[in-house]
């Protein structure tokens, strides 16, 4: 039987860093607070994080850096050159999640030099991308596509991350075809979620999202040129279960895995763990969703003590509850506190609309899709 008490891993897979709080567009479903304010990551915060990542590297633990939360490219290429050019350990993988509206040749020069993995946020062709708008409410689609065109002209590889608003199977096929046509390396799909300052997430049933993913997977199977993150999740899970002496034992091992702390470092050095989307928000009884600040305490020490922070303790209780009661928990891990908080107002709760849509539906969709073959 799995250990019912979830724990935090000492070293994360990834550190999310917020180079700026500012975003230059205003997607209707955005969860971020303070996105109209240009607050920049300081050199002191950067140096502290770099120091910890170097310590981890010297101990043989490579950690990826994801520049996200706000539009990273609003910092400007000169500042971003300083961020990527900091003394990161050799071989550090950097990823940048961007709306691509500011991509130009100067940015591509920087990408060529430092080779970050670029993730472009776009929801498909114009008809599906209508929720990505400017601050004035005008469609941002053409500006996003213009940025993608520059990436393509310069031969910069990129992934696509899309928000799906409704679980309409025909739209899944359209989205996949679009990702292929624009030359994406991979496609990830996020059902729209109730999170942060946005309260209008999907409440559609898991079955509807399962049919959406069925259509998405079949579109890929007919033209398997763009990696699908959600299918990889299912395939990876089945591969994991296939390792070891028996599926039952392997399942117990997966259920006992420590939770990836997945820290997010805000521009001001405050650190949130597990769910980046909790950054900047406050629990009315347990205080801000932070475990401390890297300007006072190095990141590794913050993570070592994070499990004792009351809101993190409740979060881990929630993970344990998922692992004890949900048949999908070994696949998703149960560690999605932001959705539990913003949907249920309870970090110790279990099921959310979002977990059914993103963490359960792809498994069912894969079974549906495989029945066609």
């Amino acid at each position, binding site marked *: 039987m799995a250990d019912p008490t979830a724990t935090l891993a000492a070293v994360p897979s990834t550190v999310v860093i917020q180079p700026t709080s500012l975003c230059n567009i205003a997607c209707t479903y955005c969860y971020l607070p303070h996105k109209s304010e240009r607050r920049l990551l300081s050199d002191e915060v950067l140096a502290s994080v770099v120091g910890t990542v170097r310590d981890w590297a010297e101990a043989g633990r490579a950690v990826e850096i*994801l520049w996200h939360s706000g539009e990273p490219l609003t910092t400007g290429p000169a500042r971003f050159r300083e961020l990527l050019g900091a003394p990161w350990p050799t071989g550090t993988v950097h990823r940048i999640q961007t709306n691509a509206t500011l991509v130009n040749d100067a940015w591509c020069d920087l990408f060529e030099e430092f080779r970050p993995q670029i993730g472009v946020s776009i929801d498909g062709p114009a008809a599906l991308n209508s929720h990505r708008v400017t601050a004035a409410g005008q469609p941002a689609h053409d500006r996003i596509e213009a940025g993608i065109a520059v990436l393509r002209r310069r031969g910069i590889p990129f992934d696509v991350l899309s928000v799906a608003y409704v679980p309409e199977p025909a739209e899944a096929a359209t989205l996949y075809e679009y990702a292929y046509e624009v030359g994406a390396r991979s496609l990830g799909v996020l059902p729209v979620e109730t999170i942060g300052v946005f309260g209008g997430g999907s409440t559609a049933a898991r079955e509807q999202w399962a049919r959406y993913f069925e259509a998405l997977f079949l579109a890929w199977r007919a033209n*398997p040129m763009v990696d699908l993150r959600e299918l*990889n999740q299912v*395939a990876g899970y*089945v591969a994991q*279960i296939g390792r070891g002496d028996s599926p039952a034992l392997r399942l117990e091992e997966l259920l006992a895995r420590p939770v990836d702390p997945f820290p997010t470092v805000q521009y001001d050095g405050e650190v949130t763990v597990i769910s980046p989307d909790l950054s900047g928000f406050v629990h009315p009884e347990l205080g801000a969703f932070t475990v401390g600040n890297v300007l006072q305490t190095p990141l590794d020490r913050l993570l070592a003590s994070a499990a004792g922070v009351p809101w993190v303790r409740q979060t881990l209780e929630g993970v344990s509850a998922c692992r*004890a009661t949900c048949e999908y928990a070994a696949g998703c*891990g149960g560690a999605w506190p932001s959705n539990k908080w913003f949907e249920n107002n309870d970090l110790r709760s279990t099921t959310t609309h979002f977990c059914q849509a993103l963490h359960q539906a792809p498994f069912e969709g*894969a079974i549906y899709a495989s029945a066609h073959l």
Partner: protein
Amino acid sequence: MRQPTSEQAGSITERLLANGGGLGRLCEPLGTRYSPKPGDGEPGGGSFSKYPGWDEMPHPWSQRAGSGDAYAERGASR
């Protein structure tokens, strides 16, 4: 807190494994990154032994496509 039962913990897993052959056909284009063992396609059979690059489950905030250096690989497939 309720403890997991094998039925609760295993049902989706059992259905996936029971459908191993179908999943193998679905995922066949993943090629060397996802290779069903011989025996897939038989009722109740099938397991998946190889999926290099996914030592842990992909985190939805992570989006790693392929493996290796994407810049070096560009243009290789299309």
